[in-house]
């Protein structure tokens, strides 16, 4: 029995290829639909605002946050899942992002070392230490601010639009995804080179 568990653990701990991860994300969406809910993680920011008293300030947050309890629990589960996967199912090479050689080259050109971060999969410039300078605040806090604002303005994030919306063949979600990519390409090709000058 112990051997079976160890074999299973070893199997799960390997990096998951895209063709396993993608369909499983669709299964997550289906399970939530089956439970009577629509997959959308960024809605939690609104629920948390409402639970923290924003409902007294603005009508957009006058929602019964208890009705979003299921979604908060999905987010909490994601925290647990991240903990378990990163601590008990470490791949044979450790928790590293197996990015392509082209990406490794592009990153090293601008002085980014993928092995430098203290938390696996997270670069060293996304850390508490990075908050000692403005660049860290810009990337972490500024990034969070834009994600929170943009997701609610667009009515959804990657889970709500790119996965749920496109699966339901919603044209608005396709427009949102075009937006996601316009913003992402702008930052990748214009802003990041400015943040990491040669």
């Amino acid at each position, binding site marked *: 029995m112990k051997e079976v568990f160890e074999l299973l653990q070893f199997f799960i701990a390997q990096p998951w290829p895209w063709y396993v991860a993608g369909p499983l994300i669709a299964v997550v969406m289906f399970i939530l639909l089956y439970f009577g809910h629509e997959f959308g993680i960024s809605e939690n920011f609104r629920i948390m605002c409402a639970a923290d008293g924003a409902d007294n300030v603005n009508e957009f947050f006058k929602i019964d946050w208890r009705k979003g309890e299921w979604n908060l*629990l999905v987010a909490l589960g*994601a925290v647990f899942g991240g903990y378990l996967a990163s601590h008990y199912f470490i791949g044979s090479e450790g928790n590293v992002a197996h990015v392509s050689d082209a990406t490794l080259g592009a990153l090293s050109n601008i002085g980014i070392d993928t092995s430098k971060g203290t938390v696996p999969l997270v670069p060293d410039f996304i850390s*508490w230490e990075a908050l000692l300078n403005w660049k860290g605040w810009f990337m972490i806090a*500024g990034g969070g601010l834009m994600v*929170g604002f943009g997701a609610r303005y667009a*009515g959804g994030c*990657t889970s709500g639009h790119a996965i749920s919306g496109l699966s339901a063949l919603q044209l608005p979600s396709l427009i949102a995804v075009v937006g996601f990519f316009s913003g992402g390409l702008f930052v990748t090709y214009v802003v990041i080179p400015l943040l990491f000058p040669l």
Partner: protein
Amino acid sequence: MRMSRYIIVGMLLGFIMYKSEAVSWFRIYEMFRFQSFHMYGIIGSAVIAGIIIVQLIKRKGIRNVKGKEIEIKDKQKTTYRYLIGGTVFGMGWALAGACPAPMFILLGSGATVFFVYLVFAMTGTFIYGLLRNKLPH
């Protein structure tokens, strides 16, 4: 407790996204530089599987756990909010290297600095709430 099933679904999501490295800043950077098929494979195969699931739900009239037919609400048919909001979102995504789900997953993996991201994401959502009536939708 009945609600614990949502925690399990969230854990599954966390596992999938962590083990497929979709939570990594490096993978997002790679995606936006079109240097690997990996992220496109994840999103693309999720959408193809999702389309099949949604079509099966509609054609077979699959019912949810409460016995009601599963309904998927149509999104509001406008343009500005998706284009502008989406672009702002995409900028934040590429900067921090994480969208909302990966942020929660990374918090669990020990990247506690994402608490700062979370607080600012809530602030961003709050700012949207304040400006909502003045923004084009």
